[in-house]
């Protein structure tokens, strides 16, 4: 008995020693595998390492450093931490083994849409326990009180506003744009003379803005898609034949240069109440429009301005731009109707795209598409979309025009139409109707053409979409929220349409 209990005791001791040793080894491995060195050993992204070192999370007054895992994993000691670590670890190893690291577009991983999938908000607030540090401005207090009041309701993220906190980005500025960027170039004295129905370049008096306008001949076409079109959605039918009168349409989406010309001439003081703006802009005897208030932040997302499409403005801002352009030029500018837009996008074709090709071939959706990449030949030169955009808008010079001479009708950025959106809009059209308009009332507006991160299936000429007003404003901390700028939607822009002046004969 005595020997036996002694053996038992020794066995117990050995068990404990073995257990503790295992725990130490495991713990060391567990801790080491969350270290910066461990992250960087696989993550072959020297730019991200460098931008981290330039960010406040490394380069700050306190001299402390925030490690990769502090933001890119949930807070330590939580169940979620272990689960996320295991999942991310497995995913990263898989990527390391199977993917060409050179081909990964690290830049676009830093865009908010992706960043919020790899940055844990609970980790931000685990360190940042006081959102109201000494020296915070009243704007900062307002924004952080809004965050605290709405964090759960609206699923707000710290990085919605502080995207560059962990990785410095010289183009990302969390601040307010005070004045429109200075525009260089010829200042036009008068609007273009238009005497016949052909392409012309509008020149906006008193500004450097010139807008290339394409003469779109009238005609008839089938709006919507046939029932057997791949990826067709219910709102694309029933297909109807409708007629469209001739009109002029911007060759490209309104550019930043054009939009800033408008902004710098019409800018309203910050926080001008919407009621004051609406009242002015609806006056019968209006001689000058009230334009946008300064945006909250820098609206080009650091992608560059110039000829890139102007983005993030609201439908009201786009309409006001048209109102301004009309006043300046004496011609009637407006947003296209949905029918005009689709007619123009098709450019006389009735295939899914204005170029040849089957959506099934181009799309990433579908059987085995996760493994075998879709074919991009035939679509690449015509549109800016998920597979060639680097997750941002591109200049119009990157693409070829459609048969009417219009560029970027599909892809690049979504474009506003003047119509309200209704899923059953086409059911209410008459066969052969001339210049049809959408429903007379609605909540959201039609947006068309897909954008830089769209799958090819959403770039079909018939594909429809709509604004999502509240969601597109969810992190706007102002009250009332801006009527000019969206805080949470980047890829939205517009192009203008000009009515054919009455004195012009259309042959």
């Amino acid at each position, binding site marked *: 008995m005595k020997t036996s209990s002694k053996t038992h005791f020794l066995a*117990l001791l050995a*068990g404990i020693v073995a257990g503790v040793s295992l725990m130490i080894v495991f713990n060391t491995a567990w801790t080491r595998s969350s270290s910066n060195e461990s992250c960087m050993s696989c993550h072959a992204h020297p730019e991200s390492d460098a931008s981290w070192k330039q960010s406040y999370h490394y380069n700050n007054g306190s001299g402390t450093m925030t490690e990769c895992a502090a933001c890119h994993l949930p807070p330590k000691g939580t169940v979620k931490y272990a689960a996320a670590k295991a999942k991310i670890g497995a995913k990263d190893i898989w990527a390391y083994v199977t993917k060409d690291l050179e081909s990964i577009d690290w830049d676009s991983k830093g865009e908010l849409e992706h960043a919020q999938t790899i940055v844990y908000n609970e980790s931000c607030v685990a360190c940042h326990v006081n959102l*109201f540090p000494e020296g915070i401005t*009243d704007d900062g*207090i307002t924004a*952080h009180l809004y965050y605290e009041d709405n964090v759960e309701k609206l699923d707000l993220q710290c990085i919605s506003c502080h995207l560059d906190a962990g990785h410095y980005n010289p183009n990302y500025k969390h601040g307010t744009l005070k004045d429109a960027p200075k525009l260089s170039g010829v200042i036009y004295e008068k609007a273009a003379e238009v005497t016949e129905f052909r392409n012309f370049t509008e020149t906006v008096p008193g500004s450097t803005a010139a807008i290339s306008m394409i003469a779109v001949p009238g005609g008839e076409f089938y709006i919507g898609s046939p029932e057997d079109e791949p990826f067709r959605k219910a709102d694309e039918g029933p297909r109807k034949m409708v007629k469209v009168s001739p009109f002029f349409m911007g060759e490209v989406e309104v550019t930043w240069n054009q939009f800033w010309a408008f902004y710098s001439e019409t800018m309203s003081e910050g926080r001008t109440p919407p009621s004051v703006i609406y009242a002015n802009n609806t006056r019968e005897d209006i001689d000058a429009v009230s334009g946008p208030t300064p945006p909250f932040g820098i609206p080009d997302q650091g992608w560059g301005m110039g000829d890139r499409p102007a983005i993030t403005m609201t439908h009201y801002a786009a309409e006001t731009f048209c109102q301004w352009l009309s006043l300046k030029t004496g011609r009637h500018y407006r947003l296209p109707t949905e029918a005009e837009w689709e007619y123009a996008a098709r450019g006389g074709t009735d295939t899914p795209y204005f170029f040849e090709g089957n959506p099934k071939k181009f799309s990433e959706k579908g059987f085995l598409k996760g493994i075998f990449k879709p074919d991009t030949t035939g679509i690449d030169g015509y549109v800016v979309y998920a597979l060639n955009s680097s997750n941002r808008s591109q200049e119009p010079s990157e693409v070829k025009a459609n048969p009417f001479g219009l560029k970027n009708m599909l892809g690049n950025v979504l474009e506003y139409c003047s119509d309200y959106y209704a899923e059953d809009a086409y059911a209410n059209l008459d066969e052969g109707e001339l210049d049809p308009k959408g429903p007379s009332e609605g909540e959201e507006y039609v947006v068309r053409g897909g954008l830089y991160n769209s799958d090819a299936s959403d770039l079909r000429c018939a594909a429809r979409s709509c604004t999502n007003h509240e969601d597109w404003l969810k992190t706007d901390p102002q009250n009332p929220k801006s009527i000019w700028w969206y805080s949470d939607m980047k890829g939205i822009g517009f192009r203008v349409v000009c009515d054919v002046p009455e004195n012009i004969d259309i042959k």
Partner: protein
Amino acid sequence: MANKEINRRDFLQMSGMLGLGIAGASTLLSSCSPKQKPLREAGTYYIPELPDKAIDGKEIKVGVIGCGGRGSGAVKNVFAAADNVKIVALGDTFADRLEKLRANIKENYGQEIPDENCFVGFDSYKNVIDAGVDYVICTAPPVFRPDHFKYATEKGVHSFLEKPIAVDPKGYRTVMATARQAKAKNLVVVCGTQRHHQRPYVQAFEKISQGMIGEITGGNVYWNQGMLWYKNREKGWSDMEWMIRDWVNWKWLSGDHIVEQHVHNIDVFLWMSGLKVAKATGFGARHRRITGDQYDMFSIDFECENGVHFHSMCRQIDGCSNMVAEEVFGTKGSWNSRDHEIKDLQGNVIWKYDKEAEEALFEQHNPYVLEHVDAINHIRKGEGLDEATDCAVSCLAGIMGRESAYTGNTVTWDEMSQSDLDYMPAELKIGPMDMSDYVLKTPGTAK
């Protein structure tokens, strides 16, 4: 294998004991408390300890900003609250007010405040806070409170903030942010919403928190009283001087009486219920007031986040029915502060504050003293305390009621908490003012 056996045996023994323990504990607990679902989990809410006097400890050096009636009252209260308290610095916009309190302190408490620690003017608050004080009593007119609190916190000074602590959204935000900074510095901040230190209210709060009236379904709060004091303009007084000396009648200084006075009652509903105001729709009017640009009555329907409504009314007119009270209704009963009692849904009194028993236990029942007892106890124990956050939220509710009455429109929490409204004049100096900014508000647009 042997250790496994031992482990199992131990484990079984252990778990047996544990099971017994759990069973025993739960029987014990359930046998001494009636089945009641608490409104708040125990330990998640603050119940102040309210001894007659603060514990002994190091000398507390006190500064006073605003030497008028409330400042003088607070000085008396702080002396009653603790021993080893010294008033070391005074500040006021006007020298005559300061000298009056200075003489009062010398006469009643034998403490002399030297000339170099007496400061006059709009910036005197900085001098007081910088004069080496531990605890500053902020009792200047309310519009100044956020800036005074902010400066005190920056300098690491504990504060007593007379209510209201904000009269506009800008001030609300300053206080909210400063309260966090004070918390980070482990500072003590007590507010002049003294019902939080009044024994019957504190006991009722505990009962309601334990679930005695169930879930909250509504309430009423009242401050209907006679006319308040006013000062006619004297010869030689500039616009600014007159308004400050007559401050309870000017909305930019006081926030109007719905904020200045009635915030007490609004605050009690929000404290007891734990709800937050989402909307306010109300009206108000002026019939009898002699000076200033305020209303003398308000009636507001407050809607909370979960759709619960409570009604608020306040009036300052002589010769009318008066009442200052709060009522909170719940799914199991109601509480009211008139009788300090809780009734069940049939009207039976199921709890009542036992005044006699409490008077046998304690000598000090004055909440204006007890709030300083609590503050100084926290200071001496080195424990932080934040009353400013909740008080600021109550003030903003009062501001919502006021703006709703002034405009005739429903106002929301989101719109007010982010509003640009800022009552502080661009420049503070004794002299003429553009008095066209200080006129009665007319709701609506119809003639």
